[in-house]
């Protein structure tokens, strides 16, 4: 298993750079993970989504679908694609320290 140093801590990641253990994640790691995904700055809107999917993951045990982020998280689809271009749920999940989404929707 590969490791990576984020916010001064060495943590386990998979071969695509997703954190293996969501509990290793701290908010300080998010900006570094975001840069890997080509997002230079995390705005409040980014944070709203990151916090929602972390919270939802904690409650439901799975990464929310894009529809759930839209309906339960209250984020329009257009905004999601604008904030996390070319892979909204995948990128948001990675930055939030969760694994790679495995659902079909």
């Amino acid at each position, binding site marked *: 298993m590969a490791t990576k140093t984020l916010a001064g801590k060495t943590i386990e990641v998979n071969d695509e750079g997703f954190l293996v253990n969501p509990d290793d994640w701290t908010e300080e790691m998010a900006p570094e993970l975001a840069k890997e995904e080509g997002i230079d700055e995390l705005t409040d809107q980014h944070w709203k989504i990151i916090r929602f999917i972390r919270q939802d993951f904690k409650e439901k045990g799975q990464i929310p679908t894009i529809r759930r982020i839209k309906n339960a998280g209250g984020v329009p689809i257009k905004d999601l694609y604008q904030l996390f271009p070319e*892979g909204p749920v995948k990128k948001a999940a990675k930055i939030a320290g969760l694994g790679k989404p495995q659902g079909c929707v």
Partner: protein
Amino acid sequence: MPDEKIKKVSIVISKGSLEGVYPGLIMANGARMEGIEANLFFTFFGLEAIIKKKMNKLKVATVGNPAMHIPSLLGILPGMSAFATKMMKKEMEKLDIPPVGEFIEMIHDAGGKIYACKATVEMFHLTKDDFCEQVDDIIHVGKFYEVSAGGEIIFT
């Protein structure tokens, strides 16, 4: 894992049953979620999925479908298709798969393009007003190949 990533898909939806429409919608939405450009081209009975009055009333076909595991003779009974449709929609809702109308809107908001086949539109005497607002254009087959250039074409 191969180095070359799929960059663009154009998906033709030609059937008007619930099970005929959803695979194409899931593939188009999935493409956008992976950063892949996506076009949806609705033709023949597939058009029902983008007709305002019909899109949320699509039914599962219970006749002539051996995988349903009910004899075709029973499949013709009144209410059979409605029952199978209700069951399938319930299961889909559990997986957070949206109803057709919401799905089309999501795909469109994600940047996917929605096209209706001109020949079928004329054959069924439809106009732009019959369609949901997400339909980008009514195009002929030549234009379909034009917008599909450089990508994969999938027929469903």
